[in-house]
């Protein structure tokens, strides 16, 4: 009898034959053995569900305690309520304020996870339909091609079809998690926090599926540090040409538009630009050959209304996520048709998927409808460029920007009642700026342009119905025209060879850290914040990884020689480089890089082994995330996933509204101990990272916090010395003082910054009781923390050899 292995077989032409499958264990075992050979032994937690990783979450929460900052005293979730939970009271269902706040945060995490994963599901199904399940995954020069997937599920997908069961797993867990939001389910805050951590982990898996599918099939750059530079900014659009503006995150439909433009020789006859992450993926589409993209990145969600009001778009095409809910109303005023190309956003528009393109164009041109739904991508590809060409002459000169005369009349209407300032989420001094404008000086209004997130809450409360956003835009026309920068197109993953080359520097600390700047545009002091932060750390030889809207904004600013950071610094995974992984879903490559360091540099087993790898990252990889403008639920999920992976994150001040942080008590020595992996004994570590997720008030404070929290127990002397140098210098530069607790990080005189060694030894002796041998300039006693280059710091007792 022939031996069956895994796979499929068919028996045709047999009748009245009973087939009994007795045992297929052998085949499964063989397949499992093959897998072990390739991926190493399976770790303890493949395909985790809610309870599987709870111990690891709780280990983290023991040091990094959940800090709840409720947005509201009330819970209005069920019909028992509303309940007043102020002062940690319990509601009618029994949940207390901490529980409710943890649930609210958790809800944000699963929403973010669902967004990325549903995006991934849509893309995956679409791409498999086009290219088939057997298409081999191609992420560039790597063997570890799906580090998040492998870490979480234990699988390493080889083909697009292999991604399907991964998506199914994420979807099932999301369903289980969502169920716990219901009233009368989970009651303990800390268990909602554990669920948030799982949601964050699943989010990175969903993102990774999404980007693997598109990088593989859509010709995106593949681990390419020299991916082409892309024009970015509102000023990059040639207004004389018919213009398509795409908004959202899912590039699937837009690729058809671009194909049509290419096939019909339209790429130089019209403009196609994007807002939010679809824009990034448009510039990655078919650009693995490094050819400069013709698609342009216009900007972030903050620019959506400003772009519409400018009248530049002749047609707007939407897909999903980060799309303003008022675009139909705003577009209609300016005769800009809105085409919804994804079921997730249909805006109440008529579904014309099954109609003839000519008929749809006619109805949109004549204003019979303000827009439509079009889910057939072949038709979408034809409809949008043709519509833009036909609308352009009809729309010539139409914009919401007031004329000079209208501007004078509008500012004179303002009575400075202050309602707009009260309503402004950025708390901008709008009345004062309008008051100055009454004298003909629009500079104060222009200053608001970059600070304004374009939400138009101000307009809705204005008793005089002044279109305040349009006033700001009018005052900023020159600045907007000059908004022209460059950003490197998303490169995708960090390759295995890059990890091999840089891993040692990272773990020893001689590369002072990885600063990962991600997220959206809800900045406290304008988009220049993220440029300032990136430049500060690049000049200090940190490795700066970026993605999404932050990557765009960083590219908007130039130095005195007119060069952006992407032109000044190369794009490798190496100290002093700035690498852009790509769009929102490419954030998975940033977390994946940490896993790869553990797997490739340290030889740790990745498969189904989350706690061990996260423990390695927490103790040895000096990486800190920064989501400075984080506004969305997706950012909450991304950051929380990073936390579970042992990567701390700093958020901008608006993100206190996420409601839950993870902050350690730096003053409680009992929290700053780990196990020595060689013998299971306890060892003291310095208080860093001192948080897993928290907020900073200003970008300057964030710089100091990030430098400090790149410190890890495993730093060697040179690494610690380099990290202390930067932390102390940044504290002196931005806070005006030495950090209070720098001395806690000193294990040996070689840890001290070289240029200040003697002065610091004096302080250690005078203020902190250290004993110094001044002849040799050596520390004799004092440090609580001992340094041993061979030590193996871990939070997991089970990893200790003699445990």
């Amino acid at each position, binding site marked *: 009898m022939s031996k069956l292995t895994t796979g499929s077989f068919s028996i045709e032409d047999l009748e009245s034959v009973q087939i009994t499958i007795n045992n297929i264990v052998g085949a499964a075992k063989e397949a499992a053995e093959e897998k072990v050979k390739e991926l190493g032994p399976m770790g303890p937690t493949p395909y985790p569900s809610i309870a599987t990783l709870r111990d690891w979450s709780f280990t983290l929460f023991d040091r990094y*305690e959940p*800090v*709840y*900052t*409720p*947005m*509201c*005293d*009330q819970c209005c979730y069920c019909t028992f309520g509303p309940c*007043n*939970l*102020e*002062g*940690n009271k319990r509601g009618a269902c029994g949940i207390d*304020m*901490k529980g409710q706040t943890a649930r609210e945060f958790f809800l944000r995490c699963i929403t973010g996870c669902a967004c990325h994963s549903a995006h991934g599901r849509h893309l995956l199904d679409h791409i498999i339909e086009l290219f088939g399940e057997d298409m081999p995954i191609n992420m560039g020069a790597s063997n570890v091609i799906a580090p998040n997937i492998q870490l979480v599920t234990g699988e390493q997908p080889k083909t697009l079809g292999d991604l399907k069961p991964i998506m199914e797993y994420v979807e099932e867990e999301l369903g289980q998690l969502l169920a716990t939001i219901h009233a009368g389910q989970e009651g303990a805050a800390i268990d909602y926090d554990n669920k948030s951590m799982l949601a964050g982990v699943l989010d990175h898996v969903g993102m990774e599926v999404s980007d693997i599918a598109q990088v593989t099939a859509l010709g995106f750059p593949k681990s390419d540090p020299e991916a082409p530079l892309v024009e970015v900014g509102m000023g990059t659009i040639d207004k004389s040409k018919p213009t398509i503006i795409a908004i959202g995150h899912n590039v699937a439909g837009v690729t058809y538009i671009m194909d049509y433009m290419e096939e019909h020789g339209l790429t130089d006859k019209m403009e196609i630009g994007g807002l939010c992450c679809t824009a990034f993926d448009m510039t990655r589409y078919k650009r693995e050959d490094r050819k400069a993209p013709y698609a342009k990145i216009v900007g972030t969600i903050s620019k959506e209304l400003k772009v519409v009001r400018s009248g530049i778009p002749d047609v707007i095409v939407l897909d999903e996520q980060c799309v303003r809910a008022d675009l139909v109303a705003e577009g209609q005023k300016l005769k800009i048709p809105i085409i919804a190309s994804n079921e997730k956003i249909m805006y109440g528009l008529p579904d014309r998927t099954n109609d003839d393109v000519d008929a749809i164009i006619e109805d949109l041109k004549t204003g019979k409808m303000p827009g439509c739904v079009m889910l057939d991508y072949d038709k979408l590809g034809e409809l949008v460029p043709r519509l833009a060409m036909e609308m352009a002459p009809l729309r010539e000169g139409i914009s919401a920007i007031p004329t000079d005369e209208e501007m004078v009349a509008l500012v004179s209407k303002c009575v400075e009642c*202050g309602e707009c300032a*009260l*309503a402004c*989420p950025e*708390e901008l001094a709008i009345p004062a700026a309008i008051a100055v404008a009454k004298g003909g000086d629009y500079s104060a209004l222009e200053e608001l342009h970059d600070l304004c997130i374009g939400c138009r*809450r101000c307009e809705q*409360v204005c008793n005089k119905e002044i279109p305040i956003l349009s006033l700001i835009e009018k005052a900023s026309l020159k600045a907007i025209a000059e908004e022209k920068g460059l950003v490197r197109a998303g490169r995708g993953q960090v390759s295995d060879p890059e990890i091999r080359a840089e891993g040692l520097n990272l773990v020893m600390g001689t590369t002072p850290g990885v600063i990962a700047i991600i997220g959206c545009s809800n900045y*406290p002091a304008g988009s220049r914040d993220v440029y300032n932060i990136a430049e500060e750390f690049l000049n200090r030889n940190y490795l700066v990884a970026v993605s999404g809207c932050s990557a765009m904004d960083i590219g908007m600013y130039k130095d005195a020689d007119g060069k952006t950071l992407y032109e000044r610094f190369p794009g490798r995974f190496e100290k002093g480089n700035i690498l852009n992984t790509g769009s929102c879903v490419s954030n998975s490559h940033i977390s994946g890089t940490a896993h790869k360091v553990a797997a490739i540099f340290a030889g740790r087993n990745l498969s189904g082994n989350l706690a061990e790898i996260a423990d390695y990252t927490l103790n040895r990889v000096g990486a800190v995330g920064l989501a400075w403008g984080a506004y969305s639920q997706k950012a909450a999920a991304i950051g929380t996933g990073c936390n579970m992976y042992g990567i701390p994150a700093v958020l901008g*001040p*608006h993100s*206190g*509204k996420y409601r839950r*942080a993870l*902050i350690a*008590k*730096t*003053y*409680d020595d009992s929290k700053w101990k780990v196990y020595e992996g060689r013998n299971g004994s306890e060892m003291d570590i310095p208080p860093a990272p*001192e*948080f897993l997720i*928290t*907020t*900073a*008030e*200003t970008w*300057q*404070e964030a710089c100091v*916090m990030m430098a400090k929290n790149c410190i890890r127990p495993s730093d060697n002397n040179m690494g610690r010395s380099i990290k202390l140098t930067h932390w102390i210098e940044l*504290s002196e530069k*931005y*806070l*005006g*003082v030495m*950090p*209070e607790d720098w001395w806690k990080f000193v294990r040996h005189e070689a840890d001290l910054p070289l240029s200040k060694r003697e002065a610091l030894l004096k302080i250690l002796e005078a203020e902190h009781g250290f004993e110094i041998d001044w002849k040799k300039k050596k520390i004799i006693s004092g440090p609580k923390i001992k340094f041993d280059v061979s030590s193996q710091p871990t939070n997991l007792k089970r990893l200790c050899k003699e445990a």
Partner: protein
Amino acid sequence: MVDTTKNTKLFTSYGVKTSKAITTEVAAKLISKAKRPLLVVGTLALSPEVLDRAVKIAQAKNIPIAATGSSMHGFVGKDVNAKYINAHALGFYLTDPNWPGLDGNGNYDTIIILGFKKYYINQVLSAVKNFSDVKSISIGKDYIQNATMSFGNLSKEDHIAALDEIITLL
């Protein structure tokens, strides 16, 4: 006297419990009576006229300063006891009765708030409000709902005048 109580208008609400609007006299009295006060100063206090008054308030009653964000720069070389701390961490530590404080002498009974964006300090104070007994008094220019007590919304000029009144009353 500046009427610091008249305008407590809101755009959105943080729920059921909102702070009591207080006069400069009440604010000064509460600050004077506090057994262990802490002046929490945010980055917006770096404008010279506000910073100068923050220093004077601290000096008047020898109140230590928690300088959050980037405000520490403003207190260097001034004759005050100021230390940097992150505001979010401070909000958390204030809820811990075992926190040794910035000076090792224990937690505080009253915090006086100055120099913040509303959206940020309201979130920080929501932890203090719900999970501690620490009293918070906002003497910034905006009405801070999650403080125990707060000035109402003030113009810049009235705010400076109100701070001057507090300094005189201390």
